[in-house]
């Protein structure tokens, strides 16, 4: 077990390195000059040159990369080129709404998606199954930014049930208030994953229901309810949980869009804004943090499998 965990952690290192490498060079390929972005278009060329020199932008790319890697190893991801604060501080300041949005949207998609998938699988090929699956395709077909705008308009503006914009931190308005600000963006974001989770649950549930042990459970006279929820669902869940784990990265991508729509200063909007203003170090740090979280979540999911289901062979 210990050996497995160590091996699994070691295998994550090359992935992280590749993420760092790809991000670093993608950022350098972006058109536009950071110095011009910071000082403005009519800054004197001399000043621009001095700024480039201090930011280290004149060094060869590989030297810059080497410096960057060394910084990471010392826990220093650099300062934002935009506001000169350490990039990690900017991330910390924007983390709260994003975490709330992520948790809430995963919750929404799981609470709706899994029951829908189970019902569809149990009532396979019925009208209900057909309807549920068709509605769930609908969720996959709505662009997140548009459902965000529509929710903000109908629920936030016309009916004024929930705030239609911005976010105020828990320390200012309290948790109950803060959550109200993230409900609409989370619904918009979660709605998209409802569909994929429902479909995933349906297909793994169907696979499980075809297994021999389910037939055994039925033939020994167990109530259908027990067979479904205690025998089948439990076993059908593991691939679904993996799916939720791997869905994390795309959810974070959706956060970039939805936070921008709602004017929420979270990590997603920070990523988008930083990309637009060519704040390399900030974008690099965000992608690194997201990748790290993604890898850790998937690592934990893998390890939990091993703990709960010793049959699982993991290479």
């Amino acid at each position, binding site marked *: 077990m210990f050996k497995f965990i160590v091996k699994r952690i070691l295998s994550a290192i090359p*992935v992280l390195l590749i993420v760092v490498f790809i991000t670093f060079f993608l950022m350098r390929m972006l058109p536009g000059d950071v110095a011009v972005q910071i000082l403005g278009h009519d800054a004197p060329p001399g000043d621009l040159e001095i700024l480039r020199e201090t930011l280290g932008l004149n060094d060869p790319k590989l030297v810059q990369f080497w410096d960057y890697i060394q910084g990471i190893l010392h826990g220093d991801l650099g300062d934002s080129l935009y506001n000169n604060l350490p990039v990690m501080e900017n991330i910390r300041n924007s983390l709260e709404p994003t975490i709330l949005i992520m948790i809430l949207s995963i919750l929404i998609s799981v609470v709706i998606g899994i029951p829908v998938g189970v019902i569809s699988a149990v009532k396979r090929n019925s009208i209900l199954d057909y309807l549920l699956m068709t509605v769930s395709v609908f969720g996959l*077909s709505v662009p997140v930014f548009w459902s965000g705008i529509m929710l903000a308009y109908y629920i936030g503006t016309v009916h004024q049930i929930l705030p239609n914009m911005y976010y105020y931190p828990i320390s200012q308005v309290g948790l109950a208030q803060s959550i109200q600000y993230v409900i609409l963006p989370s619904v918009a974001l979660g709605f998209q994953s409802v569909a994929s989770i429902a479909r995933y649950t349906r*297909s793994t549930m169907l696979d499980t229901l075809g297994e021999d042990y389910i037939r055994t459970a039925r033939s020994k006279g167990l109530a259908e309810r027990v067979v479904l929820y205690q025998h089948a669902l439990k076993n059908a869940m593991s691939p679904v949980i993996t799916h939720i784990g791997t869905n994390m990265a795309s959810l974070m991508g959706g956060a970039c869009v939805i936070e921008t729509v709602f004017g929420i200063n979270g990590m997603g909007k920070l990523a988008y804004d930083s990309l637009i203003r060519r704040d390399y170090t900030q974008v690099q740090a965000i992608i690194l943090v997201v990748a790290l979280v993604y890898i850790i979540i998937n690592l934990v999911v893998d390890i939990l499998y091993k703990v709960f289901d010793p049959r699982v062979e993991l290479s």
Partner: protein
Amino acid sequence: MVHKMRPAVFLRKYGRILLGGGVLALIILTTLAAPLITPYDPASVSPAEGLQFPNPVHLMGTDRFGRDVFAWVLYGARVSLLVGVAVAAVSTVAGIVLGLLMGYYRTVDKIVMRILEGLSAFPDMLLALTLASIFGSGVEKVVLALSIVGTPSVARIVRSQVLSIKESEHVESALAMGATDRRIMFRYILPLCVSPLIIRFTTTMASAILTEASLSFLGVGVDTDTATWGGILSVAKDFVITHPYQAIYPGLAIVVTVLSISILGDGLRDLLDPKMK
């Protein structure tokens, strides 16, 4: 023997393909016939006619620049469908090549798989945003950016198919007959990957259309003078409180288009892959 199907069975089997494909065909027809349907040029700006509510002249109203929303909705399908088909085609071809190489040669697999794992840890929207910013605006550049985002999942599908088919007896017999690697890949393995690839094609197309809309909405997609649904929505979002119709119709156009592609894809999946039922 002529085999007659009961209507209910026929519908269950082909209903979604007919529905999805039919709506999609209708969208293609209307966007091609757009100049016949509306007299307005989506690009023509007349601020004097700005922000009109839907009326007999401007069926879906006008935006702040006086551009006819109905014309944008009609013409916008061109870019969306073009981007969708092109991205799906490029990703499929690139994914096949990459997937075959990965499934067939272990060294290639080891290297490329690591890169793909790295890429999957990227938020895909952020990757698309970055690539689109690097390549600049323009349809072909957006296609390139989205194809890079779409290729890994196709490659993974082909790879896993190759790995399982490689061990099968008909490949072994081909090997025994002295077939070359290339012959085995293209004559013995690739044909068996066709159905998952067709299904994946529709998924890639749908998500490319959605991502293109998001990119244009955020201002890093196709240039702002070209009629795109995301483009008009980015203008409309600031007027949604007073003039919601501007945001409603282009959004619905995206939903209907992507929905028809997804339903078509579902129908194809049921037909081609009985295991997925």
